[in-house]
């Protein structure tokens, strides 16, 4: 079992307590101060990494005030201690590490533990990372840092009284005072902390290894813990766009059957150890539901499976050369969750039947290990129940993620020979099955599936369209599987609850009525159909149809996402008072916390099971479930993810924003523009650009209007390029938050803001060719002066009212005229746009946006 977060903080506190004898020794005082400074720097790093910005968040909420105060006093204490170490520098080199060094190591290890839940780019790897971003978990961290600060303050207090020189004593006393304040304020802010965070483990690595042959039971229990954590992470990462690919159609039945096996063995293990535990009924039901989930894949084949063995592509021009050939399509490797589920079942079986057990080896000649021996090896019933709970908890997360994952993996790859997967509400003009017997060579048919309406889904520009076929399919884009049949008129589909086929008639030979995975997604909690020919078996309760996907989700909630605007806190980044001044209108650099809300499905069945045995690490899982009801598998989108623009397109998008500011500012007649700049930031990659427009204004109305200019320009540009979507609209609003904050800081009334918005829309539409021309020039050059903006605006018939003389050369003027003409031409060619169309958005091109700028678009830069 990996070390938990609370254990590391406890270790740090105990080391600090053991250092008090050293504080009385003057000879070791210098080394102790240096070690204390190192420890303080580690503690201060928490606040920096967790975003406890002492200036940003002060006063916003009680929690933010507390964390800001905590960090503030830690910084002050660091300054005092830094001075103290200069006054009394350490002389000993190579001295053995003392208790404070061990405490610093423990605090640093706790930081490392927190970091394991995020990737190198701070991407979320486990659901615990979402938990840590919430206030209760951060309150816990603040409380534990306050504990360490309190002990360190006591230690420094003793050191300051140990006969040091006055200046040194003063600095040490100052550090003690600051640490005491940090401790008191940090503990005050820790009220309402999620104490379960103390059981947070390090994130498990996704490299499942098979259990060793002779694994002792106690180690097998630890292995079960790790397996559960790995499965949790695999389920979580598979549901996120940049994470693991989802399990394929070959993986799902294997995973489901292995998890059923693990639960069945857990049932036997509990029965064997403590028949009175009373948990076996639920566990057995769980096993049956996972088994039912595996059975739904009987007639479904995933064409991307390793087992489908697609035929090699035919020889082409290159393959005809001697000694060359086409490599075979490389099949995807089995999903890690598959091996993890195997390991779970294997470990559970070996704990019960001994280290030689293998699945399928349950003959009566191999009895379970004697219960007393088993209890002796595992340390009692509680550790066993603890480990078995982890299996259920991880399975629950996988089950909750399964519908979305199946929908992702089943794009166009699944084929079936069963009629059971026909959507019940399929239009009659789209029949699926033949009336007469099918021809022999047409064995399988594509599995129909409907895409669920998911407003958060952003079609990637240039991505494969559905009509173009799936490029991952072995046959290549646009090619149907060779065994797929053309649809024919089907027999009437029975409604839910009806018999599988009319009474007295035998079903057709291929009429297997099994609830398929997609069907189970649709049916939700409808009762399953009885097996044809089998009488109802009252002794075996039949699981609901939702169990076809996963056992532990009843019901399974389909995830949705809606774009939203982040909460803007008043009073942040205020504009200094004093009338109109220079103001940098910034755009770009989207923050990671700009994200859509999240939701998660409940799973009451497992709560009932897990309640009696929740302890230890389980607290962290339960806290994640309880405190993060919006967390689990929903993807939090950053602005670049919402936009789905490549680097060049994002740069143009930013240029349009700045051009909107500049042109609208000049168009008001009461503002002037010095320059617009787009500069790449240090973080390379798409969606990373920093831009600003340097502008002066003379009236408040002009300021309000120009602040709206960037936003409205981006909105029209998205519509014109047929790139508009609700999510991108949300991204536009998020990217314009600096403008909104500036507007708010002006103290303008709602009526004034409405007038300014209307005026900005009017200026935008009147000078739209100029805006597009300025954006093209800015995109090309990176920097554009106010004079160039003015020149481009003068090309516009509406003209500018700025009296400044034109400073462009003739050549530049000619290029500007060409850009303006091209922009007008595009504006005339494209669909007409009116301000009202902001409220009646057009959807993106259904053809998958093969050309982001329309069929006739060509780059038209200054060259």
């Amino acid at each position, binding site marked *: 079992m990996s070390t938990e977060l609370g254990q590391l903080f406890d270790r740090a506190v105990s080391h600090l307590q053991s250092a008090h004898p050293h504080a009385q020794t003057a000879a070791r005082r210098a080394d102790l101060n240096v070690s204390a400074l190192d420890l303080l720097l580690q503690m201060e790093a928490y606040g920096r990494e967790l975003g406890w910005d002492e200036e940003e968040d002060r006063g916003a909420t009680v929690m933010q005030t507390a964390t800001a105060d905590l960090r503030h006093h830690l910084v002050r204490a660091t300054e005092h201690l830094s001075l103290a170490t200069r006054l009394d520098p350490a002389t000993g080199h190579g001295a053995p590490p003392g208790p404070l060094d061990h405490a610093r190591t423990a605090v640093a290890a706790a930081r490392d533990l927190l970091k394991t839940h995020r990737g190198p780019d701070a991407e979320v790897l486990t659901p615990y990372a979402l938990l840590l971003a919430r206030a209760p978990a951060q309150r816990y961290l603040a409380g534990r840092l306050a504990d360490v600060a309190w002990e360190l303050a006591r230690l420094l207090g003793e050191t300051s009284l140990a006969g040091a020189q006055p200046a040194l004593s003063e600095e040490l006393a100052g550090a003690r005072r600051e640490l005491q304040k940090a401790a008191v304020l940090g503990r005050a802010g820790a009220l309402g902390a999620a104490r379960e965070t103390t059981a947070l483990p390090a994130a498990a690595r996704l490299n499942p290894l098979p259990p060793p042959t002779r694994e002792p039971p106690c180690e097998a229990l630890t292995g079960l813990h790790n397996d559960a954590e790995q499965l949790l992470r695999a389920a979580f990462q598979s549901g996120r766009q940049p994470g693991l690919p989802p399990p394929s159609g070959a993986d799902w039945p294997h995973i489901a059957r292995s998890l059923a096996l693990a639960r069945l063995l857990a049932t036997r293990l509990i029965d064997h150890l403590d028949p009175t535990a009373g948990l076996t009924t639920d566990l057995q039901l769980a096993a049956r539901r996972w088994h039912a989930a595996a059975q739904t894949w009987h007639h479904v084949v995933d064409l991307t499976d390793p087992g489908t*063995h697609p035929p090699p592509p035919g020889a082409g021009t290159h393959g005809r050369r001697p000694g060359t050939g086409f490599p075979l399509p490389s099949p995807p490797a089995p999903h890690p969750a598959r091996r993890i589920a195997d390991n779970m079942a294997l470990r559970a079986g070996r704990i019960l039947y001994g280290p030689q057990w293998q699945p399928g080896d*349950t003959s009566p000649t191999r009895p379970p290990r004697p219960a007393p021996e088993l209890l002796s090896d595992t340390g009692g019933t509680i550790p066993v129940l603890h480990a078995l709970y982890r299996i259920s908890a991880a399975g629950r997360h996988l089950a909750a993620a399964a519908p979305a994952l199946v929908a992702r993996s089943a794009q166009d790859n699944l084929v079936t*020979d069963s009629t059971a997967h026909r959507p019940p509400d399929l239009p009659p003009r789209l029949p699926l099955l033949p009336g007469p017997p099918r021809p022999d060579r047409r064995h399988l048919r594509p599995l129909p599936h409907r895409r669920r309406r998911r407003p958060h889904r952003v079609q990637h520009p240039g991505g494969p369209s559905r009509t173009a076929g799936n490029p991952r399919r072995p046959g290549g884009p646009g090619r149907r599987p060779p065994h797929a049949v053309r649809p024919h008129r089907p027999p009437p589909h029975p409604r839910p609850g009806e018999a599988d086929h009319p009474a007295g008639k035998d079903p057709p030979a*291929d009429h297997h009525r099994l609830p398929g995975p997609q069907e189970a997604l649709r049916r939700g909690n409808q009762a399953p159909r009885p097996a044809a020919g*089998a009488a109802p078996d009252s002794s075996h309760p039949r699981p609901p149809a939702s169990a076809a996907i996963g056992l532990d989700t009843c019901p399974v909630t389909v995830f949705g996402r809606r774009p939203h605007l982040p909460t803007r806190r008043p009073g942040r980044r205020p504009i200094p008072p004093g009338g109109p001044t220079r103001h940098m209108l910034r755009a770009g650099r989207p923050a990671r916390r700009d994200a859509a809300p999240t939701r998660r499905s409940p799973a009451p069945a497992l709560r009932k099971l897990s309640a009696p045995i929740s302890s230890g690490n389980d607290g962290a899982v339960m806290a994640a479930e309880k405190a993060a009801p919006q967390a689990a598998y929903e993807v939090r989108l950053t602005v670049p993810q919402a936009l789905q623009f490549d680097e060049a397109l994002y740069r143009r998008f930013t240029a349009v924003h700045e051009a909107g500011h500049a042109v609208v500012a000049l168009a008001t007649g009461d503002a002037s523009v010095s320059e617009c700049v787009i500069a790449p930031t240090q973080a390379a990659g798409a969606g990373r650009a920093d831009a600003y427009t340097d502008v002066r204004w003379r009236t408040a109305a002009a300021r309000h209007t120009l602040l709206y200019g960037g936003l409205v320009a981006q909105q029209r540009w998205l519509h014109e390029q047929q790139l508009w979507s609700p999510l991108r609209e949300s991204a536009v609003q998020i990217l314009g938050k600096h403008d909104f904050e500036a507007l708010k800081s002006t103290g303008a009334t709602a009526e004034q803001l409405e007038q300014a918005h209307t005026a900005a829309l009017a200026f935008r539409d009147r000078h739209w060719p100029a805006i597009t021309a300025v954006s093209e020039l800015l995109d090309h050059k990176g920097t554009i002066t106010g004079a160039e903006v003015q020149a481009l605006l003068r090309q516009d018939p509406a003209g500018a009212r700025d009296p400044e003389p034109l400073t462009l050369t003739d050549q530049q003027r000619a290029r500007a005229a060409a850009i303006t003409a091209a922009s007008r031409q595009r504006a005339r060619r494209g669909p007409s746009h009116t301000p009202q169309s902001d409220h009646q958005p057009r959807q993106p091109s259904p053809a998958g946006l093969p050309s982001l700028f329309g069929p006739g678009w060509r780059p038209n830069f200054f060259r």
Partner: protein
Amino acid sequence: MNTAPETGGLPALAGRLRGHDAEQARAAAWEVLGLAERLADHVAWETGVDTVQALATASSCREARHALPLPAVGAPAPDPAPDPATAAEVARLLGELAARTDRFLAPDADGPTAAAHATAARQNFEALSRSWPGPRHPARP
């Protein structure tokens, strides 16, 4: 599971499995393994059946089928009646399949692994068919 009266499903399948047409034989092997998997899953929770063994049997059948190419001929075999006699017949077909695994494999399949899975499927299914006393409820005609 569909328990429609068997109209020569298993004998026809056995004939195709033993026939000279390699493509038909591969398709029949695919169907045999699919039938065995469905049958094992169907009887998993029946009285007298070791559920763990049934699940392991179904898993072995699916693993073995992954080594086979996707069938290009034939039609899905009807589900046989779930009774011990059918289980014994399927076990016998699995034995034939395991004995000549190389004949049915895809060109790029891992032969030894596939043979091991087929053998495990046969052994597990034989043990399963021996321990299964039969359905508690008679099949509907």
